[in-house]
Each structure stands twice: as structure tokens, then as C-alpha cells.
């Protein structure tokens, strides 16, 4: 089935999506585990998957769309190669988190939630990683980094983006 958003998800595979959906159908309240599974496989929740999820759960497409768009985590298109989840919350603010974030965003030339034009880095705001005693903190491709400042944050990102 061709779709206008096929170009968003290069490796879209309806069979793989169907497998992910059916693997979770035995759970009580399977919607979020399914959506997490789809995003883990495709880097986002592909729009093609939404009617499939709706059908499997006997819910309307609108309902599933509503669930996907409610949660900050679920993306409609894949993120950049390196994803920086940078904490914006108070404990990080108290030790220079705002300044470190501005430094990174300015050096990448992007804003919150944006991806660099070459698709290398996406910076997402998160509100607390539970690293508040080692703030400011970020997860760079899932790797935790604490006691950051602007420079060490850029280094942490550079380390991940190196080939």
C-alpha cells in the first residue's frame, strides 16, 4: 500500500508492524507497549501503522492517533542519528542547565525538538532524567551524562556522532 508518508520511514515494513502488534495482543491494555515496539523498530510510529493498530485493538483510527499525539515520546517521523534528551527541569536549571542547553542548541543551529539539516543530531527537551543530584544531565543515544556544562555537553554529543 503506497502512502504519501512512505518517504518518512525508509524501512517501513507492514509485515514487521503486524508482527509487533500481534506479539502484544495478549497483554492487558496493549496500546502503549505496541506503540513503543513500533517506535523501537521504525524510529517513529509510522502513520501507516495507525489503522493497523486501530483494527487490532478494535478502536477508531482517531483514538489511536489521539494516543500517539498525546505522549511526547512518540514521533511521527524518525529522529536524527544521535538523539540528545536534554533535561530542562529545575534541578538542572539550578546548576547552569539553561546555559548549557543554549550553548548546544546555538552550536548546532537548531531549536528544541529540531534535527540538524544533515540529520545527524536531534535535541529533545525532557523534564527530569532522575539525575538531579548530578545535574545538568542528558541522555545521548541512551548514554547518561551528568555534571555537564556547555563544552562537556558538546563533547558528549561529538563522541556519539563520530563515525
Amino acid at each position, binding site marked *: 500500500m503506497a502512502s504519501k508518508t512512505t518517504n518518512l520511514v525508509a524501512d517501513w515494513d507492514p509485515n514487521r508492524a503486524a508482527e509487533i502488534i500481534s506479539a502484544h495482543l495478549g497483554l492487558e491494555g496493549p496500546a502503549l507497549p505496541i506503540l513503543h515496539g513500533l517506535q523501537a523498530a521504525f524510529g517513529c510510529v509510522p502513520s501507516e501503522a495507525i489503522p493497523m493498530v486501530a483494527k487490532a485493538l478494535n478502536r477508531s483510527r482517531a483514538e489511536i492517533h489521539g494516543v500517539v499525539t*498525546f505522549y511526547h515520546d512518540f514521533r511521527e517521523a524518525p529522529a536524527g542519528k544521535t538523539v540528545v534528551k536534554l533535561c530542562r527541569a529545575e534541578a538542572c536549571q539550578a546548576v547552569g542547565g539553561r546555559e548549557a542547553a543554549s550553548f548546544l542548541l546555538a552550536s548546532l543551529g537548531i531549536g528544541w525538538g529540531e534535527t540538524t539539516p544533515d540529520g545527524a543530531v536531534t535535541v529533545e527537551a525532557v523534564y527530569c532524567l532522575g539525575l538531579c543530584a548530578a545535574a545538568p544531565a542528558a541522555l545521548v543515544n541512551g548514554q547518561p551524562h551528568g555534571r555537564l556544562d556547555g563544552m562537556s555537553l558538546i563533547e558528549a554529543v561529538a563522541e556519539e556522532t563520530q563515525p
Partner: protein
Amino acid sequence: MIRLFVPKDVSALAVGADRVAKALTQQAGEGVQIVRTGSRGMTWLEPMVEVETPEGRIAYGPVTPADVPGLLAAGLLSGADHPLRIGRPEDHPFMVRQTRLTFARCGIVDPLSLDDYRAHGGLEGLTKALAMGPEAVVAEVTASGLRGRGGAGFPTGIKWKTVAEATADRKYIVCNADEGDSGTFADRMVLEGDPFCLIEGMVIAGLAVGATKGFVYSRSEYPHANVTFTEALILAREAGLIGPDVLGSGRSFELELRVGAGAYVCGEETALLESLEGKRGMVRAKPPLPAHVGLFGKPTVINNLVSLASVPVILAKGAKAYADYGLGRSRGTMPIQIAGNAKYTGLFEAAFGITLGEIIETVAGGTLSGRPVKAVQCGGPLGAYFPPSLFDTAYDYEAFTARDGLIGHGGIVVFDDSVQMGAQARFAMEFCAIESCGKCTPCRIGSTRGVEVIDKIMAGTERAANMAVLEDLCQTLKYGSLCALGGFTPYPVMSAVRHFPGDFNGSGINAKVPAE
């Protein structure tokens, strides 16, 4: 065999614990075993390495990979002297002042060893609970005075009793581990450092109220905790701690981990239940209470993770032993989490009643920057900012309420005098706007209007009139919102206005606050 202990708590990993563990593995030589533990909670000393000696465990920290050769040469393996030597962690002033009940094992045991867990008092509570019977367990939890550690402070025993008395074909235990408050990490530390303690607490809850299924709702922001807890669940199932026949009792209890998707409001209990059901995390109106109509419409105990993780020690030591700690109607201990611009950051479990000033000045050692403390935010993004003039407030649910604040989930974020409180008030409104579930108007729209009004005040536009609008807006949010997100956002905003009026004088949000 010499045993070295290196935390794998994510706060230690964030400052290089894996690199230190690798360096030790490569350089310590034969006959050395490296055990990965949770964190003791002295986060400013992470990565903290401990060695087992005849005098007990001796700690060193903060250790970098570059320190490893020097430490080994100085005699790390025998606990010898070194500039980074801390001594026995339990003798450290930060630990001596604590009462470790819920966090007694955290940082000490291998989180994924049930043998270790048993050797340190694990499963004593469940064993007693099985012998006592359900009614006696509920009575014991009620007598302990345990109240919800998520912030609302509702008596846990009463919740349990309500569910125990409800008749239904199915009941649930739900653990609220959606620890979204900035400045808090106690839930995460249990998931990573002592996961069996939570499992034991939930099994006890299930047996006590007649529930056969439990869910732990954790956060996507906690990937490391989720990996550790998933492994703990597998081990617990293999050992028969959960499953069709809990420890040979003939009783069944299943437990599952679910992960949220980055919505702060899902920490609100009814939004959490909606999310577990696979819906948008929209707050439900109460009544009916979740204890009557909860997950999938069934009677549900929904408790904070720390509440559930405190149950095993209450059963093991007895309700009275737990209730003997504390003050007034706040019984037992609270894991106070010290974060932000503090010299000694980490987790400090103490009996209720310690003053805020003692926590900030003595325990936390003041600011990391060395500058004066200007404000501390207690209880997360919905908690009030306290100025030093209120540092005589006792750490206690009611004492904080009397000062227009809340202890919440136990987080304290310290700010030095470089903070601009107008910016903090604006952030509180902005955060509410970002995270509002949208169900009720005061929260959904009021938060955005709040940002705009604060911007006008900060720009000096009709300052007095706009201050009146802000006050009025906060009243509407406080009394007109369905849940604590809209209802409590006025706490940080109005506390900033009340205690730091000079920061709202219209000279701009980025105005340099005059130094002392």
C-alpha cells in the same frame, strides 16, 4: 577473593562509573571480583568505589579512570590510605544522620541477587505477612502510619482496607513509579538498587487486599532502571516470589512492568490508570476513587513506589518500630532527595521532623557554587519556593502545608542567589502548559495565560494590574483544576511572588539580580 563494589546506578554511570569499573577490571589483577551495586545515595562522591576489608567496606570517591593506577598502587585492595579515601560509608556524616529503613539495602547489595537480598533482611516482611493473614497485614500497615510518599500523603492502610473490602472478580495493585518531579530520584534508586524490595512490597499488598495482578508504571526517561527491574522480575518469577504459587503459599500474584511515554501528568493516579489502559493520559474526575473503580474498572490499590517499598520493612520490624520515627501525623521516614545547586547532593532518608534549615545548611552543606542560598524548591515543579527565612519549617506533611508548601515526593532543589525568581515562576506556568492533559480549562488555558501575564509583569507593562491578574489566575487554577497539575502550579508561582517581590519589579526576566 577480594570484592570491589562499583555502582551501576545511572547517576554513577552518568559520571563515568562504567569506565572506572573497566579500568579496575583491567588493572586490579587476578583474585578480584567486581560487584555492581545500586548507589548509596552520596551522589556527589560518585563514582564511589568500595572494597571489602576485615574492618568493613571502605569507600573511595569520586574516582576517575585516571585515579585507578594510583589507587591500586596505594593499596586500594586492602583499604589503604589515599586522598580519595572516604572510610566506611556508614561512618560518613551524611550517612550517620540518616535512618535507613526503606533504603537499608540500596548501594550495599547486588540488586539482582536474591541471595544477597535474603541475607540483608529481604523477604522477612513477606514471610510474616503470609503467616499473619490479610486482615492483620492491612491493620499493621494502618498502624504504621504510612502515608502516600508520592505527595498526597493519604494513609496507605486506609486505601488497602477499602480495596480489601471491595468485592470484585479481579483487583489490581498499581505502583506509581512515574517519578516526574524534578529533584526526585528515590523511585529510580529502588528500581536500580533494590528492585526485589518493591516486588516484595507489591506481593504483600496483593495478598493483603486479594489482588492477583500488579503493574509497575515506570518512565521512558529511566531506561536503565527499566532494564534492571525487568531482570529482577525474571529472577523473582524463577524463584517463585511472583507467579501462580507465591513462595509455596498457594496464592497467586503476577507482576508486570509498563513504561510511560514522556507525559508528566501520568504521575497523577487517574491519568496513570488511563495510560495503563492504553488511552491518552487524561485525568479522571473523582469520585469514584480508584479503590472502588480503578484499573479496567476494577478495585485498585495505586500507591507510590516508595510507599510500597516501605511495606516490607514495616512488616519485618513491626508497625510500632516504624511509627516510632517521625512527628505528629507524619510517621516513619522519608527519602529526602537533595539536588540542584547543593554541595552534597543525594538521597538522605530521615525521620520526619528534621528542619528544612538543617537539611540545607548541614546535610546539603549549602550551595555547590559557594554563593548564598536564595531559594529551595520543595516537592517538585508543583512545589513552593522557600526562602531561607522559612528554614525553620519542620519536614512534615502538615508543617509544609501550613507554610503554603508541600513535601511532595521528597525532592529539594537548591538555588543560589543567581536565580531570577520571575524566570522560575514563568517556567512553572510554561511546564504546566506543556504537560497539561487538557481536560480542564483552568489548567489547559490558565497555564498559557499565566506565561503571558508573567511576561508582561517582567517587561514592566501595567505591573500592578497584571500582578492582580496573576493572583486571580492562580486562585482559579488552585480551586478550579481537576488534579494537582493545575491545582498546585500556583504554589511555585505565588511563593516566588510572595517571597521574592523584587524579582518581579519589571526590569526584565534576564535582569541580573544584584549580588550581596
